[in-house]
């Protein structure tokens, strides 16, 4: 395997893992403090038990998040020294603020985990709130760094020299708001449906129902709201890239020919050789409308970009279909949940709980798919229109071996963390 490929795969692998831990670490604290709040208000022991169970989850995912994040912060340099040498100073602002946010989070976590019965009740609860807020802040800040790679700004670039660096402008680049909004919602959708799904399964199996029902309602309320907002935010993202990264837009729609009143493809098999899409469903003029808000707007096709500037089409297109498909399904599931507040008899049906059980992994699948759209769709650029990925990779040969080691460790880690979670849930049920 070539060095560049190995480095790309390693970057993708480590980020795919980190994002799972990070999102859970970002969103679980909110569930935890809601449950904690209800315990303080109602003094219902079940809420206390739930809070403590979730607190363990937060602690576990925080450490895995921290460890995989530490590895990542080195990896950016280890794998892409050419990128970091120039980009480091420019996007340093969000990263250094992010460092501060992590720190606040770690301090608050220390207070929260060890503060039971030692700190004043309200202050203790409030440190939990701070964990959540600083977690979301750090998420937003890293995404600001990532969006800069999509919409580079805050510097002048001429003949390979970066000058006039303005770190604030780089941080507040044109893509940061849409990306950060979409990402934050995604974290709530993915974690919310996953947590709700796990508890739905326990209810489906008839185990410790009072506790799992309370847990389910807390998690799903967040998830449902976020899932309903998600398509709106996704539409904003799509309009954004239509303007700034037309090649990415063309790739994610598998749109080869430049056209006025371009149709939207749903599904379909991409033939990259013949540059066409088979077996698709076509909705006339919809792409033009979705991308530019005008049914007759012209959408530039891939054939009009130089071949060396085109991203891989099939992966990006499939990933996009998966994300949007799941996004639509989850938005409907969110609506269903709110409707079930009115038609309470649905919630007695086993099918209701089975349905939410089946949704457990979908949010995370959509989230990973979305990142693949963003990252692979940006190729061949590491910094859009400024630096190519192949120019950034480390000169050290043999990254393949590093990739093998990381793959081994991360696969192991996944199994072991899942195993730990199962043991936690079993312990919770046995205490009943």
């Amino acid at each position, binding site marked *: 395997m070539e060095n560049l490929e190995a480095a790309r795969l390693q970057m993708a692998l480590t980020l795919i893992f980190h994002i799972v831990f990070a999102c859970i670490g970002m969103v679980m604290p909110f569930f935890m403090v809601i449950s904690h709040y209800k315990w303080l208000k109602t003094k219902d022991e079940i809420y206390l038990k739930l809070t403590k169970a979730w607190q363990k989850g937060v602690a576990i995912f925080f450490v895995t998040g921290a460890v995989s994040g530490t590895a990542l912060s080195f990896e950016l*340099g*280890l794998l892409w020294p050419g990128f970091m040498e120039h980009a480091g100073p420019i996007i*340093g602002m969000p990263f250094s603020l992010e460092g501060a946010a992590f*720190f606040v989070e770690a301090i608050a976590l*220390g207070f929260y985990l060890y503060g039971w019965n030692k700190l004043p009740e309200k202050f203790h609860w409030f440190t939990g709130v701070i964990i959540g807020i600083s977690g979301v802040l750090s998420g937003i800040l890293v995404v600001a760094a990532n969006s800069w790679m999509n919409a580079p700004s805050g510097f002048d670039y001429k003949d390979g020299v970066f000058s006039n660096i303005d770190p604030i402008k780089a941080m507040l680049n044109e893509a940061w708001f849409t990306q950060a909004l979409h990402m934050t919602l995604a974290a709530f959708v993915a974690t919310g449906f996953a947590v709700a799904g796990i508890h739905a399964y326990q209810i489906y199996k008839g185990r410790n129902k009072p506790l799992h029902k309370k847990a389910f309602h807390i998690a799903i309320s967040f998830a449902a709201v976020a899932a309903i907002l998600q398509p709106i935010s996704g539409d904003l993202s799509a309009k954004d890239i239509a303007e700034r990264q037309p090649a990415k837009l063309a790739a994610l729609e598998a749109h080869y020919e430049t056209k006025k009143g371009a149709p939207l493809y749903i599904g379909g098999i991409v033939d990259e050789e013949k540059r066409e899409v088979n077996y698709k469903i076509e909705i006339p003029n919809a792409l033009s409308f979705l991308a530019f808000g005008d049914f007759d707007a012209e959408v530039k096709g891939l054939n009009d970009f130089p071949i060396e500037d085109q991203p891989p089409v099939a992966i990006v297109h499939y990933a996009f279909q998966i994300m949007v498909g799941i996004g639509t399904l989850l938005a409907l599931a969110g609506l269903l949940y709110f409707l079930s507040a009115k038609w309470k008899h649905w919630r007695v049906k086993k099918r209701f709980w089975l349905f939410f059980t089946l949704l457990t992994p979908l949010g995370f699948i959509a989230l990973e798919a979305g990142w693949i759209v963003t990252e692979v769709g940006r190729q061949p650029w590491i910094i859009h229109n400024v630096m190519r990925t192949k120019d950034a990779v*480390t000169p050290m040969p043999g990254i393949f071996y590093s990739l093998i080691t990381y793959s081994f460790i991360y696969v192991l880690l996944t199994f072991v963390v899942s195993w730990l979670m199962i043991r936690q849930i079993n312990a919770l049920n046995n205490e009943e």
Partner: protein
Amino acid sequence: MMLSVVLFFLFFSLFLYVLLAGADFGAGIIELFSSRNQQEKTKKTVYRVMGPIWEANHIWIIILIVILWVAFPVYYQIFVVYLHIPITLMLLGITMRGLAFIFRHYDAVKGKSQVWYNGMFKIASVVTPFFLGMIFGGLVGGNIQLFEEGTNQSFADIYIKGWLNPFSILVGLFYVTLCGFIAANFLIGEADENNELENYRKKASVATIVLVFFGFLILGYGYWKEVAFIQDFIHNPISIIAISLSALFLIPLWMMIKRKQKTWTRVLAGFQVFFVIAAAMTVHFPHIIITSTKEFSILEGVAPNSVITSLGVALLIGGAIILPGLFHLMRSFQLIKLFKK
């Protein structure tokens, strides 16, 4: 002006990482060298006193690395390219250690698997600081060969010999011992009963002796092999003063250990670390990478002013929020208990 703020935070995070993460690594090392009965006790004591700041201790390295890449990109570039392998190994150590920490404290079932977690924890506690030490040894040891177009350097010449050599190994061992030393002195103040206290006291004495031994070994080896860093070390008055001060301060430290004086043992052990770092850093400042042919200043290719200014401001604001918080955290869980006793 802002550059000094940035440099201050760079060294400040380095110091705190070496000290706080060092205490944490060291706790694992002490566990490794304790009898089975004492191992359990150490594990409990460490979790009780260090648990609340465990996460925070390990963030200093992230701050450190972010400052390096934002403000000193050229320096950072050499660091990550030529020391790629030991950095990766250190990261594996950090990963394994973090996992083992989670397992031993959060596994819902406390069963046989604990043996595995403990084993992994102890091994990773030695391996991680060892590679950290080696990385520093590699940076200043003068063994890194820069890549040159047109010569026939092998992979090993460029990417391995720079850090896999006697000097780096000695520095690695030195840092491992230093961690044990910090932890032993730190734990003395926390022991609940007498034989636990005795255990830490013994460990503290052994660590001190081994530490001094490795210190001399490094100086001796460097002098004999004419390692530039050590030659300069010996001729640099500030380094010599710092290292002599650290030797002098061993005396009150030992007195305080005898008297079981918690606060002072900690402060004095902290002094030791401070002097060692100060001695090592001033030798060549600002040249903190020494390769076989060339020395690199950390200030070479420093980021433009606008970047340094905004980084400095961010660090000042961040520091103003974080440091009081951290202080309050430590006070809530540690010093208060210390006053009570």
